[in-house]
């Protein structure tokens, strides 16, 4: 029963993930807060759902998406696919165009399925009274991750230094912060950290290592890193940008409404 074994091993992984959280919560609840938790059965049921849900989720990913995604990352970075029968001694960065497209597409698609992002988007929607849309935020983050992965692949191919990209990125984020609506700032900073977890990290790591081991002059150990860093930086910009765009749109509309009123 291979399937069952897999499921139980994933269940074990999830339980190990939840265990420290459960211990900390119970200790603080019993010894520090010393208050009865409201609706305990429902709470425990919720934890049960989370654990079984994560185990099934992981099981499905490992059965279907990870092997195929990793295989594709390997095949797409294979010189035989990129250059045909005789790979040239030196390759131009533009020869790798399929990698950039794949990085963009897979970054976008995996981010939309990322459970942690779904959680944060739902919470943001709830506390903002609906002003922040669940899907809008998730699409904004997904575009940021897509651009980040794509650019990160370009960086690995060209072998340019990681830190300059990051420093320029930080400057852009800080400049955007000055102009962006206050409501979005903390959430935008958060979106950098939530994007890269269960679905995105394994696929993106496979892509980075595959790329760094096939491009001439790169080594997976020295150049294979940095995709996750890009995938956590660019969503900050895209979410800030999305809010700026939304604000500009609303302002434009209200100015127009004002003008229409004045005209009457």
């Amino acid at each position, binding site marked *: 029963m291979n399937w069952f074994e897999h499921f139980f091993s994933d269940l074990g992984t999830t339980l190990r*993930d939840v265990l*420290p*959280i459960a211990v*900390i919560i119970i200790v*603080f*609840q019993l010894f520090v807060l010393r208050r009865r938790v409201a609706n305990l059965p*429902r*709470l*425990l*049921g*919720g*934890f049960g*759902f989370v654990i*079984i*849900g*994560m185990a*099934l*989720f992981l*099981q*499905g990913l490992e*059965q*279907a*998406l990870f092997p*195929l995604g990793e295989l*594709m990352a390997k*095949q*797409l970075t294979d010189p035989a696919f990129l250059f045909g029968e005789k790979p040239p001694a030196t390759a131009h960065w533009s020869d790798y165009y399929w990698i950039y497209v*794949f990085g963009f*597409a897979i970054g*976008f*698609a*995996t981010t*939309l399925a990322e*459970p942690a992002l*779904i959680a944060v988007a*739902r*919470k943001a929607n709830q*506390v903002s009274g609906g002003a*922040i849309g669940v899907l809008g935020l998730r699409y904004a983050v997904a575009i940021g991750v897509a651009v980040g992965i794509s650019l990160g692949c370009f960086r690995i191919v060209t072998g340019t230094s*990681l*830190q300059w990209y990051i*420093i320029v990125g*930080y400057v852009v984020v800080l400049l955007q*912060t000055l102009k962006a609506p206050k409501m979005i*700032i*903390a959430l935008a*900073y*958060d979106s950098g*950290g*939530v994007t*890269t*977890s*269960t*679905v995105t990290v394994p696929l993106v790591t496979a892509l980075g290592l595959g790329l760094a081991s096939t491009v001439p002059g790169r080594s997976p150990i*020295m150049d*294979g*890193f940095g995709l*996750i*860093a890009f995938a*956590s930086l660019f969503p900050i910009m895209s979410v800030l940008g999305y809010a700026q765009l939304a604000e500009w749109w609303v302002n434009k509309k209200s100015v127009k409404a004002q003008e229409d009123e004045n005209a009457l």
Partner: protein
Amino acid sequence: MPSRLEHFTLLRTLAPVIRLLFGSFRDLLPIILVISFFQLAVLKQPIPDLYSLLGGILLVAIGLTLFVQGLEMGLFPIGESMAHGFARKGSLFWLLAFGFALGFGTTIAEPALIAVAKEAAEVAALGGMITDTPEQRSSYAIGLRLTVGLSVGVAIALGVLRIIKGWPIQYLILIGYFGVILMTFFAPAEIIGIAYDSGGVTTSTITVPLVTALGVGLASSIHGRNPVTDGFGLIAFASLTPMIFVMGYGMYRA
């Protein structure tokens, strides 16, 4: 003839579940499209083991549905209820201790971090920062995990303090960015890529909703704080401090 009414009630209880399941499929559709397009149109190869793939996608969709359901029933309420509890208790010390414990405890056991720490030890051995023996490697990896755990613990505690004091987040982030850039100039070149990546892998899928609910719960139970502008930001700190701490660790071990 009770059947029509029964069907109706059954449908009504099942409707939210079906809607959630449908939503999960919609969330997965882009991955299915991307993978099929690249496999069929770009690589021009058949999809291997189609049934296993479809079964896997079904599992992912069911898992995601259960997760979202459990989120609203378990993770969000406990995070918020504890935030309210701490606010009522009014002890800053215990609140910060809880924040630190949550950050440290969840990070240290994080599988993604264990994988990254192992890779980092390999890089360090290759770069000659440590002698290439299994003992040295594992001590390097464990040291790194402790460092990252510590950094996330500090981050959550600091983030909680920010919510209580109402400090604007951008100034703290600005300081953090400065720290990252400054450390980049002093840290050994081999560690920089790993340090930058470590920021993204620290917060797991189960930690994120809990920490988010804690922040939002705190901000909404403290007078004068806004849950949107003040409640978020804990994750941001948790992905920034590991970069600084890991580069510091690289310098220390070099």
